[in-house]
């Protein structure tokens, strides 16, 4: 894998992400924002933040594998939480995330809290970019 993950000492120490990822060659894979739905479209984990995060990461894995990529190939991750998710629940997201990602070389990441997502009941949506050789 030729992707580089960089953390300049002059930026704040990141928690489970990298400040910079650099893709010098290979194929880019863009994954749509994944939500807590199963293959039938049914909401998984209504009102259960952890169950939803788990389903989202499962879906990301399925999507990446369809492109011949793995979770370790993720170079960028954008997380969208809905405002009703408590700030206190965010550490729960990290614990699940860290089971799926390569924690030695985590992707560059952005997390924001939005008013709502496309469907009521969705508490979190995560999109990623991967780069494979």
């Amino acid at each position, binding site marked *: 894998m030729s992707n580089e993950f960089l953390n300049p000492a002059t*930026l704040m120490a990141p928690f489970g992400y990298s400040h910079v990822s650099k893709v010098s060659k290979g194929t880019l894979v863009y994954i749509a924002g994944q939500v807590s739905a199963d293959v039938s479209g049914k909401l998984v984990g209504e009102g259960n933040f952890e169950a939803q995060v788990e389903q989202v990461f499962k879906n990301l894995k399925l999507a990446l594998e369809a492109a011949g990529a793995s979770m370790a190939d993720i170079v960028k991750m954008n997380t969208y939480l809905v*405002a009703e998710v408590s700030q206190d629940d965010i550490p729960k997201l990290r614990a699940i995330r860290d089971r799926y990602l390569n924690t030695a070389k985590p992707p560059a990441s952005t997390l924001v809290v939005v008013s709502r997502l496309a469907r009521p009941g969705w508490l979190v949506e995560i999109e990623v970019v991967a780069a494979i050789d």
Partner: protein
Amino acid sequence: MSKRSKEFISPKALIAPGPAGYSHVAKVNRGAIVYISGQVPSDASGKLIGEGDFEAQVEQIFANLKIAVEAAGGTMADIIKLNYYLVADVDQAIVPKLRPIRDRYINVENPPASTFVVVSRLMRPGWMIEIEAIAAIDA
């Protein structure tokens, strides 16, 4: 290989982005792609810089973006995309104060494609804005 490694395009049929300091289109023909995490107004120790001071926060964020892109071997002029996330409780009237700060950092001749949205909140209270970037660096 005479084609430039990247091009910034603003079609005349789209709203003129001129004064807003962005391009509608950035095209990457070759080179390395660099993803930069959303930068926030924190110094290297993680301390919030510019509490309640929008301009100070924007200045710190662009300084952080510069550190990040340079760590990858690039410059601010290599940034092809900026995404801005402004917190909803920031007064819309102070948003234009962002532009002169941005314009000191980016290449105003070829500014990046950009998106600006307002979000409910960010990861930590006190952060008024977060900015993420994608750069393309000649190999």
